């Protein structure tokens, strides 16, 4: 039933002379362009763009879309990604006139509604984090990390301290070291203990006057809560350093415990994960950060402030006193934050607790149903996700984590994250999220049990029922083809 014609490349569907969008005729005097602009600035050749009609563009992309798995269509237990349901009401509301059609340079009096929403968003994020001040500017988690590290750098600079080291566990997400490097810090990676958590002795051995920030994901990427987090924070603070919490795994602890309460000084939120801004096949996200009170002055410009007079409340943009400056053009990823706002307003305090409780319940349930075939090396119980290992299967039957992942696609399930974190051999990092039913978890469990009974050889060639079979990554890297080019004979 697949329409193979429609999924050729756009450029192969192009036909000289075809038209898609049509525009009005000019209703102003039709002066020659050469009169309006310097001829030598004008392009000489016609544009290189393809020529297609509207119907074929729709058919092309509608067909392409069906080659994807997505949360809307499939269980998508990608660890560390929190692939939860994206409420449809958010899409409707974020596109309302009066929200989607606002220009960033309008006067504040014409923006009181949106500024109020964003202000309230700051307040809610502060409450959830247990920290005092929020910047909505960062465009994603990594951007939040970078921003917070620049805040930390400014803070230390102001105090005349030059601290060069950022520490993080080996299970940290790649953005942690990458952001630290971008912010100009040296990276120190900690091995961690057997339980998969931070080793206090190891940590202590790295602490000194050069230590700037400890970046910690809590729960960590093994799905374990860093139960010594309070001690960790104390140690950091003792040497004058700051603790940064990577909030990617916040879905496990909403309303249960707060980074600010367990000692963190800064953190980011992944609104596109925890608060359902959809992932958009890669983005956009929103990575607001929260910081403790004495770091607030360093936040990037602008933040949203509120002035309350007896009769009127007004919202406006403000530049913090010691601001690190701008970290992006314009305000923030408003559209995604709006979705996050809708989510928080829909759930409320009790609802957020329910989210975390059910996220953790679902993860532990799935872990329990899989433990006979995919044991989890670290931790009796997990938080919102767990990292199972296919090492036994690999050694005994020659079935790798990759084999299982690929074969799951045939069964109609997206694969978990595989081979991350690196501390677990043949890792399968599974995060079901709270918006999946027991029935789905059971079906997924059954599929895994069936798969591990299948022939290893057969599995090496899986998947069989997907639009393509396994791609040749090596060839891709060896001679990269990063764009279509017209075949020579055309």
């Amino acid at each position, binding site marked *: 039933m697949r329409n193979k014609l429609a999924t050729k*490349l*756009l450029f192969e569907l192009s036909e000289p002379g075809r038209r*898609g969008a049509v525009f009005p005729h*000019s209703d102003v005097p039709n002066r020659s362009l050469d009169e309006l*602009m310097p001829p030598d*600035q004008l*392009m000489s050749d016609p*544009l290189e*763009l393809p020529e*297609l009609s509207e119907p074929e563009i729709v058919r092309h992309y*509608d067909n392409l879309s*069906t*080659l*994807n798995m997505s949360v809307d269509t499939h269980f*998508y237990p*990608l660890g560390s990604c929190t692939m939860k*349901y*994206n409420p449809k*009401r958010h899409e409707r509301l974020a596109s309302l006139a009066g929200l989607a059609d*606002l*220009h960033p340079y*309008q006067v504040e009096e014409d923006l009181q*509604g949106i500024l109020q929403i964003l202000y309230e968003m700051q307040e809610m994020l502060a409450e959830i984090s247990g920290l005092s001040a929020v910047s909505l500017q960062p*465009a*994603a988690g*990594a951007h939040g990390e970078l921003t917070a590290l620049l805040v930390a750098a400014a803070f230390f600079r102001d105090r005349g301290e030059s601290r060069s080291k950022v520490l993080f566990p080996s299970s940290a*997400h*790649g953005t942690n070291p*990458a952001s*630290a490097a*971008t912010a100009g810090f040296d990276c120190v990676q900690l091995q961690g203990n057997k339980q998969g958590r931070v080793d206090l002795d190891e940590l202590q051995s790295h602490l000194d006057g050069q230590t700037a920030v400890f970046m910690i994901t809590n729960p960590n990427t093994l799905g*374990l*809560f860093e139960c010594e987090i309070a001690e960790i924070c104390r140690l950091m603070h003792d040497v004058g350093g700051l603790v940064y919490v990577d909030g990617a795994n916040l879905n496990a602890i909403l309303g249960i415990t707060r980074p600010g309460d367990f000692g963190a000084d800064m953190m980011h939120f992944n609104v596109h994960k925890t608060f359902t801004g959809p*992932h958009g*096949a*890669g*983005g956009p*996200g929103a990575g607001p950060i929260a910081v403790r009170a004495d770091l607030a002055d360093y936040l990037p410009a602008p933040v949203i402030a509120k002035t309350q007079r007896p009769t009127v409340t007004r919202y406006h943009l403000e530049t913090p006193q010691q601001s690190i400056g701008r970290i992006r*053009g314009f*305000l923030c990823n408003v559209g995604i934050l709006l979705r996050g706002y809708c989510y928080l307003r*829909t759930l*409320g305090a009790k609802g957020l607790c*329910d989210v975390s*409780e059910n996220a*953790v*319940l679902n993860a532990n349930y799935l872990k329990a149903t899989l433990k006979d075939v995919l044991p989890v090396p670290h*931790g009796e*119980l997990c938080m919102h996700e767990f990292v199972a290992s296919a090492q036994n299967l690999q050694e005994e039957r020659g079935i790798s984590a990759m084999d299982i992942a690929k074969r799951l696609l045939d069964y109609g399930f997206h694969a978990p*994250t595989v081979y991350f974190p690196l501390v677990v051999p043949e890792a399968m990092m599974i995060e079901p999220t709270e918006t999946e*039913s027991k029935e789905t978890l059971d079906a997924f469990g059954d599929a895994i049990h069936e798969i591990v009974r299948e022939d290893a050889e057969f599995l090496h060639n899986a998947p069989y029922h*997907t639009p*393509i079979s396994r*791609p*040749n*990554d090596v060839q*891709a890297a060896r001679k*990269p*083809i*990063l*764009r279509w080019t017209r075949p020579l004979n055309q």
Partner: protein
Amino acid sequence: MAYLFNTAKQQRAMLQTIGVDSISDLFNQVPEQLRLKRPLDLPPPLSEIELEAHLRECAGRNVGGSSRACMQGGGVYDHFIPAVVDEIASRGEFYTAYTPYQAEASQGSLQAFFEYQTLICQLTGMDVSNASLYEGGTSVSEAALMAMRATQRREKIVILGSVHPEYREVVETYLSHLDCEIVVVSTPEGTVDLANVEAALDDRTACLIVQQPNFFGCLEDACRLTDIAHRYGALSVVSFDPISLGLLKRPGDFGADIAVAEGQPLGIPMQYGGPFLGILACRQNFVRQMPGRLIGQTIDRNGERCFVLNLQAREQHIRREKATSNICTNQGLLALRATVYLALLGKVGLKEVAELCCRKAHYAAEQLSTIDGVELMFDRPFFKEFSLRIRNGKLDEVLRNARCDGFDLGPTLRHFQSFATQFGKASEEGVLVAVTEKRTRDDIDRLVRSLRKSVLGL
């Protein structure tokens, strides 16, 4: 609760399978003393009806482009968004998918982004495009960092004063911890004086950053500027307006090394500032220095063409602190919008839009300049946007009345502190006006009447 599945009965069954008594037992890793002992202090939950009423109420206290003719510029423009763009971007299979790590289950996204990369190359005349960055300002910054890596020159960059002031600030922030001098060449005449650029460049300079058309709407001599940069071994980084490339020479045509842009004009709603689309394309030899994701073509086991994430060894999840950038989540869905937009307009459509903008903007500029006390701030060629000077302290009144009459102009130049030094008093009187293909002659004529009335104090 709205988005939860499992009933109390199912929860009990699940707990039994796990082997614990209650949900709270599952949280035993979280030390008691760290637990929040009270409910979060958040507003009470809203049903869908209430939420929609609330959002509509808030939206009703904003005045947006649907109720006023938006003639604002400064990097974000009210271009028309064909319905097809919305339709495709709202396919659940696209917008609720993750980054296409699992190629077999993500060919839809992968092919669309491969098409995006190709379209951006065709648009810019560059060799390679990545699959998106956050937005315009961070793209300029990533380009600067990339130029420093590529040239191995880490001490100095030169940037024109006519580059978007917010983008310049972002570059400053991104480079704040580096020992890198950022030389700003000021542009008091609206465009830069080539001699001043020549004076600023030297053989320690990593790159020259130019915006075309520049922030004031004026056309820089991007071609000569590129040549000058190259003469000093610096890279030429050009920040362009994608719509302008329906008419103007492409960065690739005049030899730019890195082309960056804010992609918002390509079918992305203004939404008060984001999410937008950071475009970054470059010449072939810099591909391994590029930040962000790249999609590549390959074949599957059956020899069929397919698409995968490629050259991931540049990226944070492989290279960690050695990565070319820390970016992970990008702006995929906006890249999809731009892809559909460009496909739909195609060779002829983009040219038409560019011509319409250009003609209407010139008509508006001409008509507005007939008003006493209103003049073009710079005597320079422009494309779709220009800086208007409103004399005699009338600027505020003019803008207020224009809003009442249904027009939003802006931003004003005084909105940006950095212009006070560049232009002195003139910066108090300047305002940007942008004219897109959505504006009619009637809109423009009414705007002219509005301004005339204000200036004459009627």
